[in-house]
């Protein structure tokens, strides 16, 4: 996979701009906006904000997890809805790493010389997850739908539809196909196995909310978050899930949701969210030619996988060291660390793994730990627990915020880490340009 080494590759993909919709609670303001509509709002906002001449845009790469069955190539539908008929577009899906996948795919294409300007990001609408009819029902009723059916056929079909539980539509669930384990149960098990306490999870969650609230209050996100018209014409201009006033005492009262004696609660888990996020990538030459100021570039990225039956969400503990190695950096060298907070327990588990010599020896084949992450560098403006987690958008939200952070603060590098269903891990190192 592409490690950009400036000496070898003459072209460098740079992030010049980005935008995202407000992140809102599922089944609320964006109820009527599916992944395509959220993507359209994002890309339209980004185009308007940058004033990019339409003919300069070569492609759209989009990450979505809950693909709409009626039009799964979300990227192309977005382009079509925006009248970008001659802009090629496709859709990638890599669970919660889909947004980052879209962006690194775009960066690779630019660095390979396939394109000069690409908008890459992702969107998801949990509110518009489709309820599927079970395959058994579909197969059973096919003869009725496709042929001439007599009473005998109807009886035969009926006889196949037992037991009734097999043919009832199933509630969509974020469960592993291979293990049947729901994401929250996996995180609950990680909390137990890595001995992460409820108090630590709650403290991390409160910090996430407070940092996100501070960023919103200070106007830090104003340049990133678009105003989007939701259901009933209501204009949403800021994230709705962040709670500035939350406190340890308040969330300590919540009951565990994934296990009776568990430690994961609604407050220390990321909520179901609707939203979209995207960045504009260009070759460095093109950016300068068009008068854009490059903010950041990818020094490396890495994707990893583990057996989902082991620790489903430990991926970043493998992917982050790999990305650092490819970037030629140590953890201590990076100025910022941004981790997707699927669950506070999952972030804290990964941090513990990164800090463990024993883990490094057994799982990474290295003698010493990757290192401790300085809490002051980690998720400086909060993360998915507070902001919300529209699956396909999160990776793009992280690249957007970190690229801006590097540009605003003058710091040089940021390490990103994302866990994803299927036991996947994703990581990237961004550097200021």
């Amino acid at each position, binding site marked *: 996979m592409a490690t950009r080494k400036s000496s070898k590759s003459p072209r460098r993909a740079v992030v010049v701009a980005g935008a995202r919709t407000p992140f809102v609670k599922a089944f609320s303001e964006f109820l009527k906006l599916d992944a395509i509509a959220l993507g359209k709002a994002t890309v339209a906002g980004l185009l308007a904000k940058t004033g990019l001449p339409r003919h300069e845009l070569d492609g759209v790469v989009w990450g979505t997890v809950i693909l709409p069955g009626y039009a799964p190539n979300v990227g192309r539908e977005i382009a079509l809805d925006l009248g970008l008929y001659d802009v090629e577009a496709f859709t990638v899906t890599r669970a919660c790493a889909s947004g980052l996948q879209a962006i690194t795919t775009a960066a690779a294409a630019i660095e390979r010389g396939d394109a000069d300007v690409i908008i890459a990001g992702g969107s998801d609408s949990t509110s518009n997850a489709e309820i599927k009819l079970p395959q058994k029902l579909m197969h059973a009723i096919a003869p009725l739908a496709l042929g001439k059916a007599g009473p005998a056929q109807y009886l035969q079909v009926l006889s196949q539809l037992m037991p009734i539980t097999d043919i009832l539509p199933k509630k969509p669930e974020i469960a592993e196909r291979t293990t049947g384990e729901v994401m929250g149960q996996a995180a609950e098990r990680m909390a137990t196995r890595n001995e992460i306490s409820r108090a630590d999870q709650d403290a991390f969650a409160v910090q996430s909310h407070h940092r996100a609230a501070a960023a919103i209050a200070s106007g830090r996100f104003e340049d990133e978050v678009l105003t989007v018209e939701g259901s009933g014409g209501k204009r949403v201009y800021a994230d709705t899930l962040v709670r500035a006033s939350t406190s340890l005492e308040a969330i300590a009262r919540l009951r565990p949701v994934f296990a009776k004696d568990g430690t994961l609660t609604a407050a220390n888990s990321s909520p179901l969210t609707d939203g979209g996020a995207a960045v504009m990538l260009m070759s460095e030459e093109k950016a300068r030619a068009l008068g854009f100021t490059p903010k950041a570039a990818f020094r490396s990225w890495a994707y990893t996988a583990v*057996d989902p039956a082991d620790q489903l969400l430990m991926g970043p503990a493998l992917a982050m060291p790999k990305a650092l190695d490819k970037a030629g950096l140590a953890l201590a060298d990076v100025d910022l660390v941004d981790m997707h907070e699927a669950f506070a327990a999952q972030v804290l588990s990964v941090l513990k793994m990164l800090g463990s010599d024993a*883990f490094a020896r057994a799982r990474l084949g290295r003698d010493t730990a990757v290192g401790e992450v300085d809490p002051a560098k980690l998720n400086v403006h909060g993360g998915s627990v507070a902001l919300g987690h529209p699956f396909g958008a999160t990776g793009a939200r992280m690249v957007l915020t970190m690229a801006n952070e590097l540009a605003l603060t003058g710091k040089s590098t940021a390490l990103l880490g994302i866990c994803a269903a299927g036991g996947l891990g994703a990581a990237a190192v961004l550097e200021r340009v």
Partner: protein
Amino acid sequence: MSDLLVELNTKPWFRQAIKSLGLPLPSPQKLRRPKTARQARPLADRTAVLCLQGDLGDTLAACLPAAGANPVLLGVSAVPAAWRDAGEAHGRPARVLDLAAEAPEDARADALILDATGLEDPAGIRILYDFFHGWVGRLARCGRVIVLGRPAAEAQRPAQAGARAALEGFTRSLAKEIGRLGATAHVVYVADGAEGRVDPLLRFLLSDRAAFLTGQPWHLVATATPPPRVEAERALAGQVALVTGAARGIGAATVKLLAAEGAHVICVDRPGDEGPMSVVAREVGGTPLAADITDPGATAAILGALAGRPLHILVHNAGITRDKTLARMKPEWWDQAVAVNLRAIADIDAGLLAAGAFADHARIIALSSVAGIAGNFGQTNYAASKAGLVGYVRAQAAALADRGITVNAVAPGFIETRLTAAMPPVNREVGRRLSALGQGGEPRDVAELISFLATPGASGLTGGTHRACGGMFIGA
């Protein structure tokens, strides 16, 4: 060939009815068997309660958390460093409980493991009582009991040898007591220098693969040179295996398991069974070879099928019975049984060895029989040939140890096959129930043991005869 009683006992209403009617029916537990090929974490989420009274603590720490088990430690005051590191690396933190205190109310153990390698004298075996007395009641269905000890033969004093040998009688008896739970018990004797070979055997015995093995001593020795690498998954990738009697039963099951671990399998059976044998071969992408193993040209046919590839695994599974009391036995019945069950094995091995056909660290496995070892009415010929294998593998193992080649025998007990399905119903029912697990095994249960012995990780077992009998009443 399914066992109705085992199936009925999976239904709560049946168990309830038997109980309330007070019927003296055995209630065999349906055994938990693996659904996939070997995996990196065969013990995922199983609770292993360990009593550490020896020097294998670090070996166990390197094995159990990595294999997925949640360890509970007894007999230590704090979590030892090796367990702390392993817990951190694999997310399986160890808990410490007081050995003297009663087990917690809700405690369940999927495995009870006693490291008794530190035994000094007969007084020391009180630990068997101290540990298991309280915990055996907490053992889960299809659970495991493992006692680790040092071989009596290596003891420094007679009293120490007595203490060590005591472990065997204890586990054999406990196996019978816990069999109705579908749970099994083993003693593993670890010879000096064989500590590094404990891990694969423990993973196997503790896993669902060893469902039908119980009441057995395992002698881990360091005589055969160990292979350079031992993989937990796809352990046989790139290897060539040959199984005789591959058309059905244990042979066919062995072919499938070896292939699932990555081996290319040459399936051998008599020309008369070519049909079913080639079905098996095609299913696993193996090579069919129709040959009579008693034929003088059998070795040449095998060499032809190998086509220059080194042979890594040879499973002598083909066997026949020609039952009759000795007084009534015709000479050709005697000859046939001995020719197939013993002579052909020795001849083929000798021929292949002379031709240099075996790879280093090859595995040779011959099928003996529990009935053969114990002796059986009307089976003088069969028992002679099957008992002969016990001596054969012991001697051949010693001869080939330097090349890292191991030679073992597997002795099946009552297995649900074509052979046992043809038995008179009463005899069949008695055969099934007269074992610790109260049921017959499936061909696959034997194949699991064979395929374990075929892996590089089984280098510590050689020259032995290992039963797959569910703790049968008869047999050594």
